[in-house]
């Protein structure tokens, strides 16, 4: 193979065809991220010119996020089940490994990326209303926020261990700076230092784990890792050399350290309360929603990617070449070569299926491969369940004694990370036993992410607006607020009740979906004759924790409504009837009203889960 062939194959892989950018090309799938890149560059360049200093970066950031959401187009791709004909259309989204297998583009990436872009839009408006980046700082903050969002999009779509590490770093490094964005504040600089030191340490440990796993398995491409593991474990666990098994387990544990840090899972959570207290409420909203959603998506990608044989998808440009076979633009021979060169993932399948070249004969080879991966799934599921149990319990217990509202919400974020890890454990345990149930579990997680986005953004928005109003973030200073700004207190109470998961509010929908997936998982795993007690344990722990969380959320509500106003509180400069108040209601509306009509959300979540498990 000469250089010319190589380059032309790379072109086909990125653009889909030799002469034009097709709808099923890598670049088209990556368009939302490219828009974000362009927005970041525009914000940096505009400042170089004298005129640009007067431009309000808010508008550029807002336009960029809206354009990204528009190109991500969840309304197009998250619909009903596609028929085979529809899936063969170049613009349809099924599973497609883009950029030579580094990233994967499927409905799950569409869903989570859309959630991230929607959050970016709401967040940019929120920062405008709360006024934290002034005109001087706004290019910096928006650049960092959108840069981190780009990293999070890569986390959502990562399909290669290198991309896992790169994406985590791309999301983390701007977050470190964001934590310390307030100049001359002791606490902010301390938060940034703690975050960056812990974060870099966790990333380093994760990288070492990646090097072990990739080195033992001779690949870093996650679907190929699953195939290699299946081949290794095909003779049962005892057939694998014990040293190799130990190194693999060690590597998996080290990788889980990095993921747990991003999820703020106990025992790698200690940065979270400190960073949340030191950083501004705006940054907290970003870290607690976007960062957490992306980390969960990455957990799903890594845990499912290594434990499940990936469903077959299309290569970039493949469908376009099929539907436009007679078009002069395409060069059919080189598309064939593309699959040869870059899609090595298919090779081990054929090796396992006894030199089966055609797809029809490779398919049945999947089943034994899935079965031989059962020990990997059981190990991963138990590891995630362990993290979920201690994270959830510790987060809720520690939140109980907090006096600072940001710290309280930080522990609440930790607890919610625990809740959100529960369905992942159930899904990994169910995969290969009850694939439909596993898909429902993913859908439950997707619903929880969407619901949680609005609840936590709303909570931090209230904190930011009240901080502007009275320069205090102590819960004690919230006493008797209901007499000053009743509408805001109602909003905040609705959000807090939503975070508990009380029935009429959206938090209940999320919790219900998650606990349902645990019951599904327990039943399916027990029916298959494997130990599923840990899923039942997760369910019990989740239930008890919901009860515990009632106390500390309700305490805030009680302080705001029943307690008398403190005499020494700073004067409150705030009105319910303002843009900020309207924004709060806009954010609270989905929390309060989703129960009336959540079919559309459930349908989108089901669509998101469709292409993950074969």
């Amino acid at each position, binding site marked *: 193979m000469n250089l010319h062939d190589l380059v032309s194959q790379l072109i086909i892989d990125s653009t889909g065809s030799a002469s034009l950018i097709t709808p099923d090309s890598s670049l088209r799938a990556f368009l939302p991220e490219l828009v974000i890149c362009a927005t970041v560059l525009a914000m940096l360049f505009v400042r170089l010119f004298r005129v640009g200093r007067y431009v309000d970066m808010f508008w550029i950031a807002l336009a960029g996020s809206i354009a990204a959401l528009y190109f991500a187009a969840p309304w197009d791709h998250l619909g009903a089940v596609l028929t085979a004909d529809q899936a063969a259309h170049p613009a349809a989204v099924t599973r497609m490994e883009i950029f030579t297998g580094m990233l994967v583009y499927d409905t799950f990436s569409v869903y989570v990326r859309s959630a991230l872009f929607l959050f970016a839009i709401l967040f940019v408006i929120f920062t405008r209303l709360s006024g934290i980046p002034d005109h001087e700082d706004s290019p910096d903050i928006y650049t960092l926020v959108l840069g981190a969002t780009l990293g999070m999009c890569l986390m959502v779509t990562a399909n290669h*261990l*290198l991309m896992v*590490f*790169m994406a985590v*770093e791309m999301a983390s*490094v701007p977050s*470190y*700076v964001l934590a*310390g964005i307030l100049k*001359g*504040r*002791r*606490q902010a*600089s*301390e*938060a*940034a*230092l*703690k975050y*960056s*030191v812990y974060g*870099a*340490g966790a*990333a*380093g*440990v994760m*990288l*070492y784990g*990646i*090097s*072990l796993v*990739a*080195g033992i398995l*001779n*690949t*870093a491409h996650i679907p190929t890792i699953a195939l290699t593991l299946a081949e290794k474990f095909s003779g049962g666990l005892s057939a694998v050399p014990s040293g190799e098994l130990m190194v693999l387990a060690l590597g998996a544990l080290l990788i889980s350290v990095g993921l747990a840090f991003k999820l703020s899972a106990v025992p790698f959570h200690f940065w979270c*309360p*400190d960073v949340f*207290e*030191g950083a501004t409420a705006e940054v907290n909203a970003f870290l607690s929603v976007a960062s957490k959603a992306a980390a969960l998506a990455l957990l799903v990608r890594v845990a499912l990617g290594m434990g499940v044989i990936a469903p077959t998808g299309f290569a970039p440009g493949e469908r376009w070449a099929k539907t436009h076979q007679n078009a002069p633009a395409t060069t059919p021979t080189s598309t064939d070569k593309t699959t040869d060169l870059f899609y090595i993932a298919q090779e081990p399948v054929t090796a396992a299926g006894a030199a089966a070249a055609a797809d029809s004969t490779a398919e049945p080879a999947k089943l034994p491969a899935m079965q031989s991966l059962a020990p990997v799934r059981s190990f991963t599921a138990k590891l995630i369940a362990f993290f979920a149990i201690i994270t959830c319990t510790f987060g809720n217990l520690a939140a109980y*004694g*907090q*006096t*600072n509202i940001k*710290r309280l919400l930080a522990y609440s974020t930790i607890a919610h990370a625990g809740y959100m890890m529960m369905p992942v454990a159930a899904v990994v345990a169910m995969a290969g036993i009850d694939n439909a149930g596993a898909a429902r579990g993913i859908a439950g997680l997707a619903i929880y992410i969407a619901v949680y986005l609005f609840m936590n953004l709303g909570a931090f928005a209230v904190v930011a607006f009240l901080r502007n109003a009275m320069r205090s973030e102590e819960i004690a200073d919230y006493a008797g607020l209901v007499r000053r700004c009743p509408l805001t207190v109602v909003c905040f109470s609705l959000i807090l009740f939503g975070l508990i998961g009380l029935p009429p509010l959206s938090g209940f929908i999320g919790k219900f979906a998650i606990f349902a997936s645990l019951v599904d998982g327990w039943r399916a795993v027990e029916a298959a004759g494997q130990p599923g007690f840990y899923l039942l344990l997760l369910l019990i722990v989740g239930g008890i924790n919901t009860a515990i969380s009632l106390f500390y959320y309700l305490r805030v509500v009680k302080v705001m409504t029943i307690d008398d106003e403190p005499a020494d509180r700073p004067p409150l400069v705030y009105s319910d009837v303002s843009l900020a108040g309207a924004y709060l209601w806009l954010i609270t509306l989905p929390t309060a009203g989703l129960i009336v009509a959540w079919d559309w959300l459930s349908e989108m979540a089901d669509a998101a889960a469709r292409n993950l498990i074969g």
Partner: protein
Amino acid sequence: MLRPPDGLVADGITAIDMDSFPPPITVSHYLVVGAVLFVLGAVCMATKRNALGVLMGIELVLNGANLNFVAFGSRFLRQDTLGLDGELMALFVIVLAAAEAAVALAIALNFYNNHTTIDVDHADDLKG
């Protein structure tokens, strides 16, 4: 067995030392060095009081992983390898480590401006 040159024996290094690492250099030798770097880095991160010392520990950890990548990718050490992926990952990590160090140093400088020290023990305003 490869015998050490006479000069080395005279300097006190005996043939027994050479036996524990038999002559053909394998991946394991590199892994041992990588693991030593990793552990040193982790210990450095955990024990150093100075923020810059902690950052150096992080660099050691990253370089331990890098050594693994390159060793696993080298086709002179074993038959099945990680291939070019190994070298490429090492390259990316080097670049990322530089970016991360730049940001972390800027944050350390900011911390110094506010606290007039970079002793991480003085970062104790936030707790609970």
